């Protein structure tokens, strides 16, 4: 069960709207390495994770990613607030505006809508944790790309915070992988699937 906290994990206060910037950042909402894919990935994988502590970690990181989704949405919302029709036409935002006005809809920057194929839930602890490690790095690269082209400090600060969190998650997933491996045969981690062939797990 979840409860909502009526606050952002990192404050967002943008005073200069810029729909062009919003149309780039939206990739971290519904793009291939966005926060929605991140949250759904971890919250889907956690059920079959063979180690309770790692299941708990996936829950907590998956929950934090929902908070990140909210930060990204707040940024996009504030960047597209009170737009004039003229701004819509000249800012590269017109195609999105036609279908969604200024509402939030999960899509990649290039226009590909959110799709569950952006993430995997494979049912093998080693496979899934490597996917999670890669996902955090892909999200970090995307934040790097955004921070490189965005100049407004009011937008950059929350993006820099989110980028830092990707690093922390990467570290924690690395530790989770070590924990899973400590229950497996060190001579061959890939001899069996710890989520399915449970009889081989050392207790």
């Amino acid at each position, binding site marked *: *069960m979840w*409860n909502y906290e009526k606050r952002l994990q990192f404050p967002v206060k943008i005073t200069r709207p810029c729909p062009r910037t919003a149309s780039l950042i939206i990739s971290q909402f519904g793009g291939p390495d966005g926060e929605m894919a991140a949250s759904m990935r971890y919250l889907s994988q*956690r*059920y079959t994770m063979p180690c*309770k*502590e790692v*299941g*708990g970690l996936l829950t*907590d990181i998956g929950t934090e990613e929902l908070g990140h989704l909210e930060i990204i949405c707040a940024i996009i919302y504030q960047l597209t607030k009170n737009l004039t029709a003229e701004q819509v036409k000249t800012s590269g935002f017109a195609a999105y505006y036609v279908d969604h006005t200024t509402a939030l809809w999960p899509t990649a920057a290039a226009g590909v809508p959110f799709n569950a194929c952006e993430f995997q839930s494979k049912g093998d602890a080693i496979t899934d944790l490597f996917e999670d490690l890669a996902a955090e790095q892909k999200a970090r690269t995307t934040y790097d790309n955004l921070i490189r082209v965005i100049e407004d400090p009011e937008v950059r600060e929350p993006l820099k915070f989110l980028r830092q969190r990707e690093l922390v998650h990467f570290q924690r997933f690395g530790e989770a992988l070590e924990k899973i491996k400590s229950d497996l045969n060190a001579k061959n981690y890939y001899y069996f699937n710890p989520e399915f062939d449970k009889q081989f797990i050392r207790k």
Partner: protein
Amino acid sequence: MLQEINETSFMVNDLTLYLDTHPLEEAALLQFQKAMEKRKELLKAYAEEFEPLTMDCVCPDTNNHSACCTRYAGQKHFTWSDGPLPWEGGSI
């Protein structure tokens, strides 16, 4: 005790929706207040007896029944991962 927490919490959830659209209704406000007080008491009692159900109930000094991740039972530790995962059907 978990059953009672579930029932009280569901009352809070349902009253929340009702009060979202009827924020001035006194009878519902009173019920909400009662249910919320009960929920807080129950969560505290559950954390002391078993394990914390929310982050706000995590307290390394008051609940340390689980031996997981500890060298000895009762060792001070981060209790958040104590107890069964909810999807394992543990605490019914």
